[in-house]
C-alpha cells in the first residue's frame, strides 16, 4: 500500500481525538495522487472529504490498513501506521509546517526509509504544505 498522512512539526497526527488540521487543496491533491487506483480510509476521514469522494474509487472501512492491497492508497489520520508497516510500499507525508498540540503521533521510523521527493505547495488555509515521498531504503 501507499500510505498518506499529514503531520505537524513534531510528527503529530491528532489531539483530543481530533485531527490537528485540514486543508481543501491538500484533499484535492490526495485524490489526484490516488487517481484511478483504490483509496482506502476510515469513516472519520471519509466524513472530512464528504462529496469530494464522488467519482473516485474509495473504500471506507475501519480496518482499511488490513484490507488494502499492494498498490492501493491509504489515507491515515487517527491511528498508528505501525501495525501495517510490513505492507507499506511507500509513504507520502504531508507536513503542515506548523506546530499543533498532539497526543497521537505518526510513529513509523522513517530513518529506515529513503526520502526520494520533497515538494512545497500552498494550501487553501496553510501558507506552505510540504509533500515528502519515502521509499524503503
Amino acid at each position: 500500500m501507499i500510505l498518506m498522512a499529514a503531520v505537524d512539526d513534531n510528527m503529530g497526527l491528532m489531539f483530543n481525538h481530533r485531527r490537528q488540521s485540514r486543508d481543501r487543496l491538500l484533499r484535492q491533491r490526495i485524490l489526484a495522487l490516488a487517481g484511478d487506483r483504490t483509496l482506502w480510509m476510515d469513516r472519520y476521514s471519509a466524513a472530512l472529504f464528504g462529496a469530494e469522494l464522488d467519482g473516485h474509487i474509495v473504500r471506507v472501512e475501519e480496518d482499511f490498513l488490513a484490507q488494502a492491497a499492494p498498490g492501493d492508497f491509504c489515507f491515515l489520520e487517527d491511528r498508528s501506521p505501525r501495525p501495517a508497516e510490513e505492507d507499506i510500499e511507500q509513504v507520502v507525508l504531508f507536513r503542515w509546517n506548523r506546530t499543533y498540540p498532539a497526543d497521537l503521533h505518526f510513529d513509523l521510523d522513517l530513518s529506515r526509509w529513503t526520502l526520494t521527493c520533497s515538494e512545497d505547495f500552498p494550501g487553501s488555509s496553510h501558507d506552505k504544505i510540504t509533500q515528502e515521498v519515502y521509499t524503503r531504503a
Partner: protein
Amino acid sequence: MHKLKRTILPFLLAVILALSGCENLTPQQQAAIDLSSLPEYSGQAYVELNNNVPFFTEEDLTSASFEEYSPLDELGRCGTAYACISTDLMPTEPRGSIGQVKPSGWKIAKYDFVDGKYLYNRCHLIGFQLTGENANEQNLITGTRYLNVTGMLPFENLTADYIKETGNHVLYRVTPVFTGDELVARGVVMEAMSVEDKGDGVLFNVYCYNVQPGVTIDYATGDSALDGTTDEGEQVSYILNTNTKKFHLPSCPSVNEMKPEYRQEYDGSRTILEAQGYSPCGRCKP
C-alpha cells in the same frame, strides 16, 4: 459588563471547583484559583483539564463573533479574555509594536539559553493571529518564552487554522491564573470549542505552565534566577536545523537533506537546547 459577569464568574467557579475540589467557596477563593491539585511542571508544557472539555455552558454557544477583555484588577493584573472568533475578527495587517505595554510583574531578564534570550514575552492571552489585538493591556501578561511558544502557540495555531479553513466560529477563553497577590501568573487556562460543529473540529481545555526550563521565577515580583540545572547534564553533540528548530543526531538522514543555511553544529547541554525552543527530530529521535 453584564455579559462579562454572566460568563466569567460561572467559569471561575467551575475552574475552582475542578482544581480545588472545594464546594463552599468564599469570595476570596473565587478571586484566586487553587493550584494545589495540579501536578508540578515536569517537562510537559501543559496538562489537560476536565478531560479536555471546556467549562462552557450550552447558552454560551453562539455563532455571533465577539471579544471581551476583563478590566485590570487593583494590582494591574489581567483577567479572563473571552471571544467567539471567526474570520471577521482575525487580523488583516501585520502586528505592530507592543513594547509600550508593561504587564504586571514585567521585568527585563536575559538568559543566553532562552530562545531569543529574553525570559519574558508580552504574552497575548488571545493570540494576535486570532483577534488581531495588538497593544491591548487587558490581553497581555508577563509570560515566559516557553509559555508563549511551547505552551500556548500550538493551541492558537490549531484554532486559527481551523477557522481559516472552515469559516466557522470557535468559542475561545483564556484565563491567567494568579496565586494570592502575585504579579506573574502561574499559568493560563485555555479553553476552546468550535461552535457550528459543536466541538467536532476543535475542543480543548488545558492549563499551560508559565515556567522556563533552567530558570526559577519569583511569581510575586517577576524576579528570576538560574536554577542550576542548565550547567548540569551530559554534554551532547547535535546538528541543529535553525529553521525548523529541531535537533538531530549527526547520523540522521535529515541532516543531509537540510539546507546549508539552516544547518548548525551544536555541542553542549540538551537542557539548554530545549530551553531555547529546540525539540528532538521525529526521525532519529535523539
